């Protein structure tokens, strides 16, 4: 396999392939992964640490299932914010504890004027609306329009898959 990025090599990719579905729930999970791959546990741990430092791994931990936990309303709030203010707005909004993702994306006029996307989760739409109102208050006149797009159905969900 050719690796396009200078950030990861074949050993990293084998480790990614072995861990993207999760870590084994055993006392020495990295040793177990290493054994499966025929690698030294020290190598596996050093590679994981390096991928964390480089942002290839966002974090290691539990991935809660929002739906099972009763957080079933998911609103994608989108905001029309001037390009030169998106960064400061994004930093404010991304820091809110009910926002799970926050991105700057390009506007596509005339169809799509929105530049800041913030995913807001709640137990129901009323809770999401309250949180969106909180964002609106925080942004003040930085934003000149927003909408909330609720998901009504998951049509496909496979997650990240890479070839090991």
């Amino acid at each position, binding site marked *: 396999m050719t690796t396009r990025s200078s950030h990861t090599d074949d050993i990293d990719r084998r480790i990614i392939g072995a861990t993207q579905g999760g870590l084994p729930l055993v006392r*020495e999970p990295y040793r177990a992964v290493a054994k499966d791959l025929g690698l030294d546990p020290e190598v596996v741990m050093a590679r994981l640490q390096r991928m964390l430092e480089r*942002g290839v791994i966002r974090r290691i931990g539990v991935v*809660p299932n929002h739906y099972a936990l009763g957080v079933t309303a998911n609103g994608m709030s989108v905001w029309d914010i001037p390009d030169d203010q998106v960064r400061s707005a994004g930093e404010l909004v991304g820091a809110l504890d009910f926002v799970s993702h926050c991105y700057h994306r390009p506007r596509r006029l005339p169809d*799509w004027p929105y530049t800041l996307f913030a995913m807001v989760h709640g137990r129901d739409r009323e809770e999401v609306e309250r949180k969106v109102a909180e964002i609106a208050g925080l942004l003040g006149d930085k934003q000149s329009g927003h909408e909330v797009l609720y998901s009504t159905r998951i*049509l496909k969900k496979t997650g990240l898959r890479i070839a090991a």
Partner: protein
Amino acid sequence: MTDPSLDAVDRRIINALQGGFPVCERPFDAAAEELGIGEAELIARLDVLQDSRYLSRFGPMYNAERLGGDVTLAAMEVPRERYETVAETVNAFDEVAHNYARDHRFNMWFVVAAEQPERIAEVLCQIEIETGLQVLSLPKLEEFFIGLKVTV
């Protein structure tokens, strides 16, 4: 949040372990100590939380873009009567990772990820040809810091 089948320790685990799981010989031991429980108990509880689907996964969360691939978020305005057929066409591409129905004029939103960046444009173009519908591509320009989320 008060889910009756999660006790206080489960909630502490979910709230505290959304990141920062250590990389060391006995990481559950180190994490358990922070939580004030034993290593075996933490492993057993994570097993139950995962089996009962309160957790969708436990482990590293990888960042697709940093793996050398490319990702975009795409949106389409799909006529209601063609919705299911168009969803099938879109979902048939392996590069389409998630696809959500949303209640908006743009009513279909999907993520396209590919290891070869030029493949993204090919997939979007192919979807436009097969469906005869326009696809808006909204690639991420910047991501803002996301702390630990979902408090239970």
